[in-house]
């Protein structure tokens, strides 16, 4: 009868196995973090860009039923103080947002309405104001913010390389990281500029764990974008309306 391996032999074998595996794991972490940092650095320092994104998002209804909605978003960014987002919903209706350095204008061509809010400064400050102070919806704003690297830094230790995959015809590194309340997956182009080709955000703490996805197309870095691209002429008959901001305990009709 063959003699069973001793405990000492097993321990040595386990140590050797761990030593062999650990560099591979560390290497995957390093690759994932490096790819994310490269992407964040590139997006944050790019002064002008244009890209389109086909987006989907789940909305979990009160019944628990999960319904998907979608839209195409076209972003034109010209730092320091110009931005434009054109949105086409799946029903064909169009809406958008323009920041021209002095005001934020949001419009809805289907509803024939628009709103204009005075705001000067950088595009980052303006879009932050739009999303947080005015409570307006602006998906993926952080991805195009100048502080993207800082935003992602604290989550980099969780980054992992899932594999090498092709999305939208582009060879990409599929990386995953865990943020405070979300799981984020990114597909970052392997060759050339480290541009995201796809992003999936899972809201793991929300009922039903809804997801937001975006597939990027037509990345153009540093295009020539004239001032006229950020001009807004209200369509004939368009109604100018206000933006309701989050309540601050003030009821309209009462003396301030």
């Amino acid at each position, binding site marked *: 009868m063959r003699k069973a391996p001793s405990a000492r032999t097993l321990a040595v074998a386990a140590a050797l196995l761990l030593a062999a595996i650990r560099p591979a794991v560390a290497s995957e972490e390093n690759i994932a973090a490096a790819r994310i940092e490269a992407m964040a650095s590139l997006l944050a320092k790019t002064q002008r860009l244009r890209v389109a994104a086909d*987006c989907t*998002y*789940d*909305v*979990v*209804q*009160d019944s628990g039923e999960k*319904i998907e*909605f979608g839209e195409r978003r076209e972003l034109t960014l010209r730092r320091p103080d110009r931005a434009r987002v054109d949105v086409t919903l799946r029903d064909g*209706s169009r809406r958008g947002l323009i920041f021209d350095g002095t005001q934020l204008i*949001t419009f*809805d061509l*289907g*509803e*024939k*309405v628009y*709103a*204009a*809010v*005075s*705001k000067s400064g950088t595009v980052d400050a303006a879009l932050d104001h739009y*999303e*947080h102070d005015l*409570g*307006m*919806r*602006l*998906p*993926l*704003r*952080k991805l195009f913010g100048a502080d993207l690297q800082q*935003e992602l830094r604290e*989550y980099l230790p969780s980054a992992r390389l899932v594999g090498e995959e092709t999305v939208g015809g582009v060879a990409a590194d599929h990386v995953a990281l865990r*943020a*405070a309340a*979300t799981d*984020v997956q990114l597909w970052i182009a392997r060759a050339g500029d480290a541009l995201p080709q796809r992003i999936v*955000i899972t*809201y793991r703490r*929300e009922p039903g764990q*809804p997801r*937001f996805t*975006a597939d990027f197309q037509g990345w153009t870095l540093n295009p020539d974008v004239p001032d006229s691209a950020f001009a807004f002429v209200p369509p004939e*008959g368009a*109604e100018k*309306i*206000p*933006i*309701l*901001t*989050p*309540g*601050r*305990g*003030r*009821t*309209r*009709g*009462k*003396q301030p």
Partner: protein
Amino acid sequence: MSRRSRGAAALVAAVFILAAFVEDGAARGGGRGGGGGFRGGGGFSRSGPAARGSFGRQPARASQRGRYDRRAADGRLGERHDERQQRREERRDERDGAWEDHVEDGWDGREEWEDHIEDDRDDDDGGYYYDSGVVYWSLPCRPNVIAMGGVVYYVCDSVWYTRAYSEGEVVYTEVPNPTGH
């Protein structure tokens, strides 16, 4: 059943179907003021955490922001009809109370009060204003559309509404009657 009576029955049925269709259309889309059509079809809500497409720190959610009620029952962003009626009465009481306070505080005239309302809702805040009321996807009727002082009002059953943006969507919000009647 004779051919004539079958024809009459079919005509009656057609009238009922048409009437139901018109009624439904008025209730759903009548208030859109010339554009867009019914939003939130089938009573489905379109807003939620994933719609914001944010990673990392989440912006404040609708349920945490003020007193907006975002239930989408009957395709409305706000309350069901009975709840809305109750809320409407409460808001009328609030306005009446505010008006009484306003008079007691020594303000001297309805006109000034109306100016105050206008200031409260518009450009003094640079195109936005604070509101803690209820908003609606659509109106309960086909409204009378009245333009007054640069503002377009939608009137249903003596209740006045204006359109506004809320969380990126165009909604209706109840406002004081600008005529004071």
